[in-house]
Structures are given as C-alpha cells and as structure tokens.
C-alpha cells in the first residue's frame, strides 16, 4: 500500500471523526531510501520503486528463459503463452512497422514491451502496488536508450546528409514552407521526441496510480457509522475495483504504445522515406 493510505489507516482518520479528507498528492510517488550507497561519487538511493524495478527485471527474464529455454516445435505450457507474446511483438510490431529489417530489432522491442508491461503491472500487484514507470526517470531512461539507438543508426544506414534531410524536410512541400518546417521538424523529431516518448508512458501510469490511491483513501476515509459514509465508501470501493481493471488495460496499452513508437523511430532510421 502507498504511504498515505497507511497513514490514513493508522491515524484512524474517518468522516465525522474531526479530520479532513487526506487527499493524496505527488508525495505518494516519493519514497524514502531503504539503503543508500555511493559509487563514483554518486549516491544511489535504493527505494521501493528501485527494488520493484529489479523484481520486474527478474520476473521477465525468469519467465521467458523458462518458457523458451527448451522451446519445442509443438508448443506446450508456458511456451504457448510466451510464443503468443513473441509472435505479437515480431509480427504485430516489428514486421508491421519496420518491415523486412524488423526481425533484427525483435529482441529489443520484445524486451521493451514485456519489461515495461511488468513494471506497469506492479501498480496492481498486492504489496507492490506502485507502477515503477510512474517514476519519470525510468521511462526517460528507456526513451534515452531508444534515442541513442535510432539517431546513430539512421546516420549509419542512410548517411548523415540523407538521414537529416529525410527527418527534417518532408517531401512534396513548397520550398518556401521549409523555412517554417525545418525548425519544427528538428524540434519535434530530435529534441522533444525522447520526452514525448517517455512522458506519454509516465503520465498515464502516474495518473492511473493517483486515481486508484485517491479512491482507496476515500474508501477508507468514508468508512464511518453514517449512511452517507457507508454508501460513499462502498461507491469508492467499487470505483477502485473498476479502475484497477481499467488500469490493467492501460498498463498493457502503454507498454504497447511505447514499444510501437520505438519501432516507428527505428523505422525512421532504417527505411528512408
């Protein structure tokens, strides 16, 4: 459970008990360090999200190594599930977006999709209950990796001139428009891209977690010996359950969107347009 829900529970703060609604704020996304250590002068704060990050990494690796280690021609058990995921990424994302050259990027896209999905899914895992991707640094670190892949890749595959031309000068546009278009394209494709890429994922998970926490806190807060309190508490609980189901959808969808965008950016690099 997140900090404020515990706080509300411990304080016995309920409707009509003389305390106001303890609305959660951005502080529910900040955690105290459990362990701290320095490497090369940089202090690493090992907080709950950082532990969940490593748990998620372990879960993804262990699941797929077990599913695929002895993959057979006729799939059974875990391989069925894993294979469905693999074919989804290979056919639905890599080949659809990048085409023939997409197969080389399947391991990368596969890692992004399932790692991000599990990080998002931590939002509704009991006791974890925190989407690691709502720590902005995490989606940003992935977006930076994608950026550091596709820009050099584009220069290497197409040559610097052709690549930057294709990225900044859309074809079939009157020459005069380039005065306006080139700065806009540079801004949107090379400067803000890693931010839009990561903020999309971060903001969705942040907002989803905030909603769930708000209604969880409301469920607890409204639970009091009064008709309006019990009704409100029951309604809030129902909304919490509904939102949890909705979040499951958003978690998968945002993992897909992030991966798909990564594939689109890679496609910009490998296929000139």
């Amino acid at each position: 459970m997140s900090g404020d829900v515990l706080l509300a529970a411990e304080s016995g703060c309920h409707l009509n008990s003389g305390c106001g609604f303890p609305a959660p704020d951005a502080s529910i996304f900040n955690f105290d360090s459990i362990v701290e250590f320095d490497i090369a002068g940089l202090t690493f704060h090992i907080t709950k999200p950082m532990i969940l990050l490593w748990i998620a990494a372990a879960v993804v690796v262990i699941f797929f190594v077990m599913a695929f280690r002895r993959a057979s021609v006729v799939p059974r058990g875990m391989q069925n599930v894993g294979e469905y995921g693999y074919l989804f990424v290979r056919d639905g994302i890599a080949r659809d977006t990048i085409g023939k050259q997409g197969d080389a990027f399947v391991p990368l896209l596969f890692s992004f999709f399932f790692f991000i999905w599990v990080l998002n899914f931590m939002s509704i895992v009991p006791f974890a209950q925190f989407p690691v991707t709502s720590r902005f640094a995490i989606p940003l670190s992935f977006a930076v990796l994608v950026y550091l892949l596709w820009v050099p890749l584009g220069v290497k595959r197409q040559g610097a001139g052709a690549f930057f031309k294709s990225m900044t000068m859309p074809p079939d546009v009157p020459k005069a428009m380039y005065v306006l278009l080139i700065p806009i394209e540079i801004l949107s494709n090379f400067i803000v891209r890693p931010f839009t890429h990561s903020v999309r994922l971060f903001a969705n998970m942040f907002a989803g977690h905030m909603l769930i926490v708000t209604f969880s806190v409301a469920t607890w807060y409204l639970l009091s010996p009064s008709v309006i309190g019990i009704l409100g508490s029951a309604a809030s609980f129902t909304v919490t359950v509904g939102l949890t189901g909705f979040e499951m959808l958003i978690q998968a969808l945002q993992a897909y969107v992030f991966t798909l965008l990564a594939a689109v950016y890679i496609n910009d690099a490998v296929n000139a347009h």
Partner: protein
Amino acid sequence: MNLLASEEAPNVLAVPLDELILGIVAFLIVFWALSKLALPGIRKALEERTSAIEGGIARAEQREAEAAALYERYQAQLAEARTEAAQIRAQAQSDRVAIVEEARSEAAEAAAAVTARADAAISAERAATVASLRREVGTLALSLAGKVVGESLEDDARARATVDRFIADLEAQASAGH
C-alpha cells in the same frame, strides 16, 4: 512516510540521476538476458516449425508429382494395349479373309481336278465307244451288204424289211454296247 516531502510538493518530473542509471542498467540486463538466453530458443523452434511445414508441403507436392507421373504412365500403357488389341483384331480380320479365300481356292481347285478327271474319263469312254462302234458298224455294214446280196433284189418289200432289221440290229447293238 515522507511527510516532509508532501509539504515540499515534490516535482514529479524530477530525474534523479541514480534512478536514470539504474533504469538503463536494468533494461540492458533484461535485454541481454532475453536476447542471449530466452529468444534464441523460441526463434529456433519457430524456424524448425516453418521448415517442418514447408518440408511437409514439399513432400506432398513430390508425392503428387509422382502420382501424376504414374497415372500418365498407366494411361500410356493402357493406350498402347488398346492399339495392340486393335492391331491384333485387324490382323485376325485379314487372316480370316485370307484363310477363307485360300479354302475357297483349294475347294475350287479340288472341284476342277474332279471335273477334269471326270472329263478325261468321259472322253476316254467316248473314244473307246466310238472305236468299238466304228468296228461294229463296219462289221454290220459288211453283214448287211452280204445279206442284201444274198437275198433277191426284186422284192422291194423284202429289201425294205432287210433294212429295217439292220437298223433294229444296230439299235440293239447300241443299247447292248452301253
């Protein structure tokens, strides 16, 4: 929890460098582990499946081709057999005509031989008859002449009777000769 933080209203877009580094490291480890330990297995299995399916299709196509070739050969053999049968029938037909013709000519020859033999016998008999007749006619003529000379030539009636007797004798002799 961090009551202090909530009073400060933390910046949600803050990027702690340690988290950024941990995120990159964690992803790289996941990527390395999946692409080295997990994904080669499934890729190999899928390739094997594809080749198994393609191999099955190729085998089926080969069988089909073989069956078609076999059918072609049977058809050819059947046609050959039919032609052969037709030739044999035609041969038999012409043989039959030849045999009938041969039989007919043989029969005709046999008949001709029989006829020839009969003709020869008849002509031989006639020659013999003619010879004996000539002999007998001479004899008879001599005897008639003797009788005519011996009898009186005045009596026409007698003379006529003598001639009639001679002719009757001739007839009698002719019927006896046969």
